[in-house]
């Protein structure tokens, strides 16, 4: 006999909560509504059983014996696990960092502290006239973003949808899959994003445009009552991490309509980690990458991350010089080189918890099937108790 449940997908920072999962004989057989990435996640097989007690004891031993440990990753785990990880860092008096500042500079802190105006994806669906994908490729990283929120759906005040009510543009250095779907594509040369911002605000204030495309785009901005910039890491790199320039541009746009910014974060709960650090009144102290490079760390607790695949070789090779504990549902190059691997379940599939969507809205992740694989939260709680 099969049963069907509705689940929330932790495949990306959209946290789609309309996933239909068909379960038969305690296994997931079918997944509906999910994107390619989400379906892949739900249909992931379980890990073979292992001695969890021994693994936790070893993790505690490594952390107790370390002179300068650090905690890294945490963008792909639940809010509950993030809170425990923050407590472990307080207990050990050690550094804790995720990928947010590495990939997005100060952007998330500026959004969380309201220095940059932001809105929810539900506001976007109901009200947005213009969606600007700047240095972000939703079709590859958050595949259902355009269909659920930013371009195709009918919203409360946007009943005519993308055909008449919405305008979407991609600004990027190459024609990405998102650029192919959007109505317009504006190509920007690497590092020329600040100059493009100058030109756009210049045209809006009456200066002659440099191209027909820019004139058209500027006219769409003028017509819009509600617009959103979906900022990706491409924009942050293009601005050379100059947040003042971004704030200046957002203020300029807001002279013509309501304009907001939503960071297109990659980890499904990166926003959650930044919020949890703020709530715990903690700041990122130092840089995990610099400490790794300088030999300032002798043990790392890595949660839901694969630095071997995400960090340049000059840094990742340093992981071999230190003791590494990896907590992750998957086999990755980092689990390959780790001293200790603790395989955990996937939140929303095997285990429960909660996470924060890219816009700061919190969602509950309810497990769809019963497996014995422990959650990140359960493992981290036992490590904290052992310390």
């Amino acid at each position, binding site marked *: 006999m099969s049963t069907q449940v509705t689940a929330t997908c932790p*495949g990306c920072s959209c946290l789609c909560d309309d996933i239909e999962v068909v379960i038969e004989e305690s296994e997931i057989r079918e997944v509906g509504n999910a*994107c*390619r*990435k989400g*379906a*892949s*996640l739900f249909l*992931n097989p379980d890990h073979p059983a292992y001695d969890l007690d021994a693994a936790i004891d070893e993790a505690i031993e490594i952390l107790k014996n370390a002179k300068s440990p650090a905690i890294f990753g945490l963008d792909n785990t639940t809010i509950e696990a993030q809170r425990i990880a923050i407590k472990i860092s307080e207990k050990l008096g050690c550094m804790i960092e995720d990928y947010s*500042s*590495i*990939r997005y*500079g100060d952007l998330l802190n500026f959004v969380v502290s309201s220095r940059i105006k932001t809105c929810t994806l539900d506001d976007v669906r109901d009200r947005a006239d213009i969606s600007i994908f700047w240095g972000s*490729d939703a*079709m*590859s*990283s958050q*595949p259902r973003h355009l269909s659920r929120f930013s371009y195709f759906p009918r919203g409360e005040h946007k009943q005519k949808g993308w055909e008449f009510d919405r305008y979407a543009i991609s600004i990027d*250095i*190459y*024609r*990405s*899959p998102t650029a192919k779907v959007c109505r317009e594509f504006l190509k920007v040369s*690497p590092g020329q994003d600040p100059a493009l911002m100058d030109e756009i605000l210049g045209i809006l204030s009456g200066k002659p445009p440099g191209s027909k495309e820019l004139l058209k785009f500027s006219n769409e901005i003028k017509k819009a009552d509600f617009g959103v910039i979906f900022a990706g*890491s*491409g924009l942050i*790199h293009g601005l*050379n*991490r100059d947040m003042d320039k971004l704030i200046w541009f957002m203020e300029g746009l807001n002279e013509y309509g309501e304009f907001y910014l939503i960071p297109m974060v*990659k980890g499904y709960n990166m926003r959650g980690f930044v919020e949890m650090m703020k709530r715990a009144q903690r700041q990122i102290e130092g*840089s995990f*990458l*610099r400490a790794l*490079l300088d030999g300032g760390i002798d043990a790392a607790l890595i949660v839901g991350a*694969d630095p*071997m*695949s*995400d*960090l*340049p*070789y*000059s*840094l*990742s*090779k340093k992981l*071999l010089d230190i003791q590494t504990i990896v907590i992750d549902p*998957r*086999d*990755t*190059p980092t689990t*390959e*080189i780790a001293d200790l691997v603790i395989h955990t379940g996937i939140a929303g599939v095997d285990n429960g918890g909660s996470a924060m969507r890219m816009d700061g809205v919190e969602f509950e992740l309810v497990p769809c099937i019963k497996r014995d694989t422990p959650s990140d939260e359960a493992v981290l709680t036992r490590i904290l108790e052992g310390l």
Partner: protein
Amino acid sequence: MAGISRLIQAPEYEIKILIISDIFQSAESCRGRISREYQDLSAVVYLDKEDMKAWSIKDGMNVTLFNENGKIVVTGRSSKEEHRGIGLMPPSIYSMRLASFDETSGAIPLMVDARIRRGDGEVTGIRELCKKI
């Protein structure tokens, strides 16, 4: 001998490597990042068709990418889009062999300068690459 092999080596060309997301590789990574399927989707550089013609690189041919950060053999694939002088690579242990770390800003630039040449060996498997550190 080294001098002769240097002379018969394929010519090298300047290229910028842009690290981009790829939904197919990303979906495969949800199952793990060690499998052959994930490797095939990661050890790849998508090249502009005109660049491939100019550099005599055929679709599916192995190419060597290198810069001051490292050297890696990947499969060259023809891109559907035009991006002269730019090779697109998904984020993985392969592209990270070429990536750099900006110590001043703490950032990992998405675009790096490199050189490309035809052939020069087989694609190294992920497990083997982890051991080669």
